[in-house]
């Protein structure tokens, strides 16, 4: 049990992200890639994810403003978005992406719009939680640092 209260808080924060289903084991895979030479790798990937996926979110948004929906195009965008989300372990976001794609495949316009709203919520929530987590991690030092033989 870590005596440092900030590190304890960090550990609790981290655990709850998994317990509440925001993150899955792929996030842990990324944590394993951090070491002394690359101590902020996970944060870098997550930052890249939010920067890069913003473009996809915008594309989907615009595509949803053009009626009738081009479900093929929408599915294509979401396939890409889901891929990146999966790569960082964004569990809930990935689930919403899957739902969206199902609605695309069954050409359900209402379903798509609902799923997209829900997806954006999860996407924003995760971002806030991860920002808070990384901010605290920077203050306390990372919890998990893999030490690999050189």
């Amino acid at each position, binding site marked *: 049990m870590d005596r440092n209260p900030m590190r304890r808080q960090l550990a609790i924060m981290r655990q709850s992200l998994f317990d509440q289903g925001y993150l899955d084991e*792929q996030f842990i*895979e990324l944590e394993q*890639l951090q070491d002394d030479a690359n101590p902020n790798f996970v944060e870098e*990937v997550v930052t890249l994810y939010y920067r890069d*996926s913003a473009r996809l979110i915008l594309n989907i948004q615009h595509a949803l403003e053009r009626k009738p929906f081009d479900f093929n195009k929408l599915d294509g965008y979401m*396939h890409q978005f*889901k*891929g990146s989300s*999966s*790569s960082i372990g964004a569990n809930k976001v990935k689930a919403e992406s899957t739902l969206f794609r199902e609605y695309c495949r069954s050409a359900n316009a209402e379903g798509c719009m609902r799923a997209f709203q829900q997806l954006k919520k999860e996407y924003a929530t995760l971002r806030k939680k991860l920002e808070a987590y990384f901010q605290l991690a920077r203050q306390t030092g990372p919890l998990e640092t893999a030490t690999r033989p050189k």
Partner: protein
Amino acid sequence: MAVNGAVTWLRRAEEIDGYDLSASDSEEVHVLAVDDSLVDRKVIERLLKITSCKVTAVDSGRRALQFLGLDEEKEANGFDGLKVDLIITDYCMPGMTGYELLKKVKESSAFREIPVVIMSSENVIARIDRCLEEGAEDFIVKPVKLSDVKRIIDYMTTDFREGEERRRGINKRKLRD
């Protein structure tokens, strides 16, 4: 002379029965990673670097072929350019898919020996079979894990080492004393 696909590396000094096999043959595995996703490229790059590989990451099949093409030109001019030891490519990409890239590589006399590994988020048996039939070495289901990459690199290294041992036979160099 280095030829694309002919593996001439050892990642670190290895001792087998007291003989040092590294010596002057030490070279990093050079992997050409192909993925249109920025996030996935960053991750695969890190995974490969941790596995002690040299990495060139490109965002399309077209660029991958261009890179290989440049390589060939350099070698034709006598310059031992960065030969590629392994290609690891995403399946779903706009323009040229990973499958199409695989086919182009396997159809080329210069590059067909380079092992190609396909990555895909979709675990579809038909797709996997198609890729393996076309000559893919292996198929990784995304998201890619360190164990996936380690498995492939270890497998390739073992494959090479066994081949080298056979080739060297009794011509083993003694460990320096």
